[in-house]
């Protein structure tokens, strides 16, 4: 009986916490079905003429959990009346997809190399990876800028796609994951005369599916959400990804902000739902020493 009781308390605490955590998401989703006029009344603190007539002297923004009337007009506006939105979404994909594919490939190869490399000082090289990995983006931006300038790619997405592909985080994560595979596997395969490509394809990749999926997801989330690099490198409005556009409409065009936010989070959300297990398992493996 006592066990049951403590379970109920724990679940209540967790439900309360979950409610706090989900609140921003729930508001954004439910308000994406709100009409433009309702948004304007609730989400601005400017007094409208009616408010003045009603004698309201002070007005606050009112976050509403449920819209008064349901409408899909915001979605219509975003997806049909503003073709630029879909164009910008394509830009987001053009940036994110190459980084995800490139980074996962490069990281897998590097992690494999680090694992079988027997040089005495390989940990020193790896420490360099860790140091760069821990640097905040702003510290890396200058170096990025210098290289982009020297390579003449300052005005293209390549200026931040290439550093993204070679970003050391993936190597770190996958190397940790690879540590969970017993070294005997490598040696046994070598004895059988398998070459490294075969070992990688037949032995390593099947055991690291979760780790690879976890990495792909984390990189996707990060580049889908890209802001700083774009602000520095992208000069043309129509070349911007959604992430930057969205921070702007939250100032200029709040009547579609919720629907625009929702459409923008569908993909990452979808990946979380289908990939939750992988994320957990991929990270789980990397937790083991």
């Amino acid at each position, binding site marked *: 009986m006592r066990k049951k009781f403590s379970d109920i308390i724990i679940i209540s605490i967790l439900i309360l916490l979950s409610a706090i955590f989900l609140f921003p998401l729930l508001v954004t989703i439910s308000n994406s079905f709100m009409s433009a006029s309702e948004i304007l009344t609730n989400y601005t603190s400017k007094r409208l003429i009616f408010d003045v007539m009603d004698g309201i002297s002070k007005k606050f923004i009112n976050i509403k959990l449920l819209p008064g009337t349901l409408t899909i007009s915001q979605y219509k506006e975003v997806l049909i009346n503003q073709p630029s939105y879909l164009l910008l979404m394509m830009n987001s994909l053009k940036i994110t997809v190459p980084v995800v594919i490139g980074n996962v490939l490069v990281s897998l190869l590097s992690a494999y190399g680090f694992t079988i490399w027997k040089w005495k000082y390989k940990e020193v090289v790896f420490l360099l990876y860790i140091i760069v990995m821990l640097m*905040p983006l702003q510290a890396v931006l200058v170096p990025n800028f210098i290289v982009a300038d020297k390579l003449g790619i300052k005005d293209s997405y390549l200026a931040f796609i290439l550093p993204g592909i070679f970003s050391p985080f993936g190597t770190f994560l996958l190397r940790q994951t690879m540590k969970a595979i017993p070294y005997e596997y490598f040696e046994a395969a070598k004895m059988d005369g398998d070459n490294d490509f075969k070992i990688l394809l037949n032995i390593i990749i099947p055991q690291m599916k979760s780790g690879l999926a976890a990495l792909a997801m984390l990189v996707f989330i990060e580049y889908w959400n890209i802001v700083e690099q774009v602000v520095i490198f992208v000069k043309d409005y129509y070349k911007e990804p959604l992430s930057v556009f969205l921070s702007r409409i939250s100032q200029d065009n709040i009547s579609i902000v919720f629907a625009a936010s929702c459409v923008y989070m569908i993909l990452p959300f979808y990946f979380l739902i289908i990939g939750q297990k992988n994320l957990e398992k991929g990270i789980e493996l990397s937790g083991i020493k």
Partner: protein
Amino acid sequence: MRKKSFDFGVLFLLPGLIGFVIFYIWPFLISLGYSFVDKPIDSVFVGFKNYLDLFKNESYLMSLKNTLIFMGICVPLNIILSLLAAVLINKVSRYKEIFMLIFLIPLVIPSGSTNFFWKSLFATDGYLNYILSLLDVSKVNWLESEVTRYVIVFIFIWKNLGYNIVLFIAGINNIPKLYYEAATVDGAGAVRSFLDITLSNLIPTFVLVTIMSLINSFKVFKEIYLLTGSYPHESIYMLQHFMNNMFYSLNYPKLTTATSILVLIIAILSQALLKYERRKSV
């Protein structure tokens, strides 16, 4: 077999290593060079002058201090809270997946998508102050005062708790059940076995969680920037603001000097972390 002179597989390192050198190491060295000269073009070697100047620069010192304070609050707080949540979630095995999913959601939602919500919540005439006004409490300036730091801490925890929870749950489940049974036989209580077994076996996880929290504590800049712009209240003026602003004003000596110092700090820090891990987890 082990003695075989050369492994072809080591060559797999090359593409990654070449890219890493071109896009990170080489430019970092160039930037290190810039920190010892007066300007990038027609430069004159000035020794450590830029470094001495930087340590007299008030906005730099402020941003450094704020970043350290912020990390000093966020990283431990996030670790403690996520460990607690992980222990709780682990107890309710039936709904474990659902709760983990809920706590992971903030991590995947793009910052831009919640930006408007946070603004509506924390604005001077926003929803929080509306609730306070109903309670007859005067307005709090959530985004432009000393309180702002804690608003950002809150958003940081909201976004990053889930990832740490996943790491901790994985770590806890890796501890053999046998250890706990043995402790119970020896008469250890729940608290004792938590301290002696759970915590001491989680040390590799702690190192990983600390590394991830540090990385993410730098990433929270995106939220700060979207919420409060380039020149926020001075309690959240971070190193990243300083660097961003130096970048826009094309002040290379200051910027590259600040970068070099940061590399040094992070190098010492990661060295210490890894040493600690190796010593503890033999």
